[in-house]
């Protein structure tokens, strides 16, 4: 069954069809939530909330619009709400350069790449310097590869604002990488943005 049909049936109240949608989108939803929230368990909670919310509002979705954008908007909004709530409760991890010591020892040499787990940890620590909107813009545009216009639609901003957020996020991350991970800061001759 294709996605349109699953959406139609789920809109009519078919939970089994909705489960099909959840299985098809859960990895991306979780991945985006994880990069914004910065930790696995919180991101899993957010992903579950995203699908519960999606079920509640799915009837409002109209064919023709991008279902992915619709779902990503819910994801980003709930992930940012989660960050704010954690921050309000004083539970969010703040920027802590000393926390670098807890990172796994990384191989030396700029040609080597960190393992996926190490890369995830580095992003979690460095991206704490970004605002939630900058983080969301960077994750959607640069990691997920979503076009700028679509990111603008998801975040409810103008494309020019998205470009500014992404540029600023890149600058902050590059500086943090240079200071704290010099072994990874220098590429193999890639062109500067």
């Amino acid at each position, binding site marked *: 069954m294709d996605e349109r049909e699953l959406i139609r049936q789920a809109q009519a109240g078919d*939970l089994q069809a909705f*489960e099909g949608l*959840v*299985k098809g989108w*859960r*990895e991306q939803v*979780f*991945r985006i939530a994880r*990069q914004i929230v910065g930790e*696995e368990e919180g991101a*899993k909670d957010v*992903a*579950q*909330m995203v*699908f*519960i919310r999606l*079920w*509640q509002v799915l009837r409002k979705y109209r064919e023709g619009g991008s279902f992915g954008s619709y779902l990503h908007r819910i994801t980003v909004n709930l992930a940012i709400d989660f960050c704010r709530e954690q921050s309000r409760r004083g539970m969010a991890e703040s920027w802590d350069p000393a926390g670098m010591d807890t990172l796994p020892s990384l191989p030396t040499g*700029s040609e080597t*790449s960190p393992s*996926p787990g190490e*890369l*995830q940890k580095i*992003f979690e620590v460095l991206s704490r310097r970004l605002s939630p909107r900058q983080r969301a813009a*960077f994750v959607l545009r*640069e*990691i*997920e*590869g979503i076009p700028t216009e679509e990111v603008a639609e998801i975040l409810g901003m103008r494309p020019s604002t998205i470009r500014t957020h992404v540029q600023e*996020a*890149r600058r902050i*991350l*590059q500086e943090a*990488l*240079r200071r704290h991970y010099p072994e*990874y*800061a*220098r*590429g*193999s*001759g*890639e*062109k*500067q*943005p």
Partner: protein
Amino acid sequence: MKELRDPADFFRPLKETRPPEEFWVGFWPSVRAGIREAELSRRPMLTPAGALLLGSSAGVMVAAAILVLGFLVVPALRMVPQPASYPATASRTAIPHPEERTSPPVLEELGSASARVYTFHVGEKADATDVILIVDEAIDI
């Protein structure tokens, strides 16, 4: 000297990270439970039929209350003197009006021939009362 690495290129492989399949165990049941819980909390307390039934029951109860008031309570109230009809000195109703006054009740049989009884009328109208004084020299205190 090498250029600084673009963080977008550096972090792009994060898109390829996938949690193991066992990570998703319990995910859908939790979502389904959340959906049910949300639906229960949003559902109105009464269905339309329930509301109609409850409304009908309430109507019947109101009608019954009106009947009880009309046939039992109101006639019973009519039989009881209204508080406004009582004199302001209602607490003194034990003292009869001077015109209706009869002799004071017998307090004690006096067996003594020397005993004398004096009755003083004190006060006027509604405040009038009798003070009875018994004098007997034979009383041995």
